């Protein structure tokens, strides 16, 4: 079976299409950045610090009642929402002074239990604001370090123009995925950071596979322009790109629908990232390399050690 006909020759990289793709990418990135700047992210308590309780009720929970009872007990800034099921309730409180954090949580628990229903305390987290900001810093650091190392690896294996293309594609994917969470105000927690890094890994995987073929064709197809060689390569890899994307999406959809509420943000980040990553490995990466005037000559390795020549008979 084949999802696409045997040989495609779609002109992905024609100057017009490249411009359209560039415009789309630019819009994506700008919208994401604007949303990040204005709306920000709905950070989970991993990053902000605070108190979180997840409780299970026997009957569908009445959020208004819970809010009222919490407010009358003095928790005016408590956020109450359903979590996955209508019997599961998530209560969040901003960071409390360390000494009172435990007391506040105990009182919150008592207030919830006083509602008359039996409640099952499923999860309880108290994160100090200080640890929260540290986790955020480490997440950002991980992303920067990963991008840097990848840039170096691709530079060693290919050439800096390819590196620039790959990192442009990755940054594009990462910004868009995080931007998506900002635009739709989805909860952004530590697992989402992990997902964004996995997206970087995945998208890179795609990009590198395409580059690998481009390099091969640069050598195999002499006398063909860089643009044409890249086009041929992308077409040759199209089936693989789509199938791998598809199988990965299959498992991620299973994870999103069956994995439960707590890893839903993780699944969403990966799904968004993989769709955008597939697009960017076709367009952003190669187009960036073309903008930088990549040519087959860039990949012909110069002789590194001139002394070797002298030793030749």
């Amino acid at each position: 079976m084949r999802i696409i006909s045997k040989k495609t020759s779609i002109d992905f990289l024609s100057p017009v299409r490249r411009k359209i793709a560039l415009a789309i990418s630019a819009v994506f990135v700008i919208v994401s950045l604007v949303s990040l700047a204005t709306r920000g992210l709905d950070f989970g308590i991993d990053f902000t610090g605070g108190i979180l309780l997840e409780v299970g009720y026997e009957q569908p929970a009445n959020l208004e009642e819970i809010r009222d009872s919490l407010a009358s007990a003095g928790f005016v800034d408590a956020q109450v929402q359903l979590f996955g099921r209508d019997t599961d309730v998530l209560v969040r409180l901003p960071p409390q002074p360390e000494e009172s954090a435990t007391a506040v949580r105990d009182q919150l628990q008592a207030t919830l239990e006083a509602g008359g229903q039996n409640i099952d305390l499923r999860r309880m987290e108290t994160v100090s604001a200080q640890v929260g900001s540290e986790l955020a810093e480490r997440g950002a650091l991980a992303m920067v370090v990963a991008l840097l190392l990848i840039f170096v690896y691709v530079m060693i294996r290919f050439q800096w123009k390819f590196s620039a293309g790959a990192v442009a594609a990755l940054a594009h994917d990462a910004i868009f995925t995080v931007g998506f969470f900002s635009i739709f105000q989805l909860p952004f927690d530590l697992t989402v950071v992990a997902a964004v890094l996995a997206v970087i890994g995945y998208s890179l995987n795609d990009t590198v596979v395409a580059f690998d073929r481009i390099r091969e064709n640069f050598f195999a197809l002499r006398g063909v322009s860089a643009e044409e060689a890249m086009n041929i390569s992308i077409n040759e890899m199209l089936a693989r790109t789509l199938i791998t994307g598809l199988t990965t999406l299959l498992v991620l959809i299973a994870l999103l629908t069956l994995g439960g509420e707590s890893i839903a943000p993780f699944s969403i980040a990966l799904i968004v990232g993989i769709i955008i990553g597939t697009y960017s490995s076709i367009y952003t990466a190669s187009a960036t390399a073309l903008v930088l005037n990549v040519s087959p000559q860039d990949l012909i390795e110069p002789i590194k050690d001139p002394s070797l020549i002298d030793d030749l008979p």
Partner: protein
Amino acid sequence: MNKFPLWLNTLVLAILLAGCLFALPNIYGSVAAVQIADSDGLPYEEEQVAAFVRSVENVGITPEAAYIQDGRVVLRFNDKNEQGPASDHLRLTYDGQANVAATLAPKLPAWVRDIGLKPMSLGLDLRGGVYVLLEVDMETAIDSRMKGYQQSFDDRLRDAEIRRRVDLDGQTITVRVTGPQDLDAARDVIRRTDQDVLIVDGADGKSLTVSMSEAQIEARQDFAIEQNITTLRNRVNELGVAEPLVQRQGADRIVIQLPGVQDPNKIKDILSATATVEFRLVDQSGGEPGSRRYPGRDGEPAQLLKRSVIASGDQIIDASAGYAEGQPQVNITLDSAGGENMLRTTMNNVGKPMSTVFIETRRVEIPGQPGEFRRDVSEEIISTATIQGVFKDRFRITGLTPGEASDLALLLRAGALAAPVYIVDERTVGPTLGQDNIDRGFNAIKIGFLAVIIFMAIYYRAFGLIANVALLSNVVFIVAMLSVLGASLTLPGIAGIVLTVGMAVDANVLIFERIREELSADASPQSAINSGYEKALSSITDANVTTLIAAVVLFAIGTGPIKGFAITLLLGIITSMFTAIVGTRAIVNLIFGGRKLQSLPV
């Protein structure tokens, strides 16, 4: 063409079998059990198991299995309701000799246990429990060391008959002597007391400023952390928690994981408690330098106490709570240094009063300055008694409530914290959520896996089936490696496995698409297989190494859930490369290699 040598086929088969063997312990599930550990940390011997079995049989409970695991006795029960009564009974019977913890034990057959195989452990988010991140207050660790220096400099200078004033201000000690003539002698004495401290001459020519060197501060901090970890480990063991984890994290943090514990409040007070005691003589003359007035608690009179400490909490090697004449008390045993000092002091001071000071440190947020803290140290006299006779390393302290006496005994027995600790992050997962997470996670793996397998079989036919074998062995390998490494599986870890399943097909897809290309370029089936695998290799390697970089960075920098995800992703990348490049090739070679083929089912 396309034949693997026998040794390579055998190797692939051997690796597959090893993977299956190491993954095997995970299919048995787990049952309620009780874990018994010796209080002194000594491993139990095989002969001792029978005694514990007899003990629970006395109350009418028969364990389903009883054996030693890592030096601890494990009793497994068929009926979950037997676990509670059994552990209660054992706790009562072996109080003080053994720590008894209720837990879940894998239901492994004896032969699997005997060859030392274990299932992968489940993270707290899957089995329920408490996670606590503690921060060690390093300032206090340094301060207490400086106090020690202040006292020892003062003592040594007195022994050398140098008139001096030794003041402690923050983390510097100022030693003032009467004139420049004493300065060199004083410097010598200080050098001899500790040769690494930094000594700076004062501008007035008759004083010295002493502080700790960078290396000393670092060593002190390391000591404080290590000492705290030992103490916390002891405390956790005293609480009776199975498989606790106490680990250093970074420069000044300690992670504690307590699987199965449901009530964080019960353990939190014990973990962060800094309660300790000091013994000091009462300054009856009323004017000795350095003497200080201590308040009394609950009607106990305040006293002026001498500066030198006779013995302190960190010199106590054993403590037990009990009653004497209806009053709660704690029986103390000191180490040899503390005992010597106590002996000397009591010998010289019979008939004079000595006080027991109860010390607790708390961190309080400064009002109006969130994130800024000050330390509140409360030092109260809990009892003052007249030294009736000479004693050495065994005595008792009174003046506590029964609850305080038993907590203090536990804390003193487990050792004092070298520096106070504060909880900065605390997470509790209830047992129902844990089970939910397991069910949902495995469901997602099953369905996702099935979807990919069906897709591959339809899309690549026979080759798809071969890829599916590789995919299945991939999951087996990941589980096997997690079990061998002793890494715990968490919910993000399950997500990592799911993602790996999706991505692991990539290597196969690369190869199969390449074979198709070769075939459509009119290569013979055999050479298409050969060049398909060969030409795809560089793409597979490059693509996987880059993902590996991302996974390694995640593992190195990430914490908690990120690490759990990174470890399965990392293992998944390695195993998927092996199964795709070598594993499927072996099967393809076995089926198609060396035969005359008209076409390939790809």
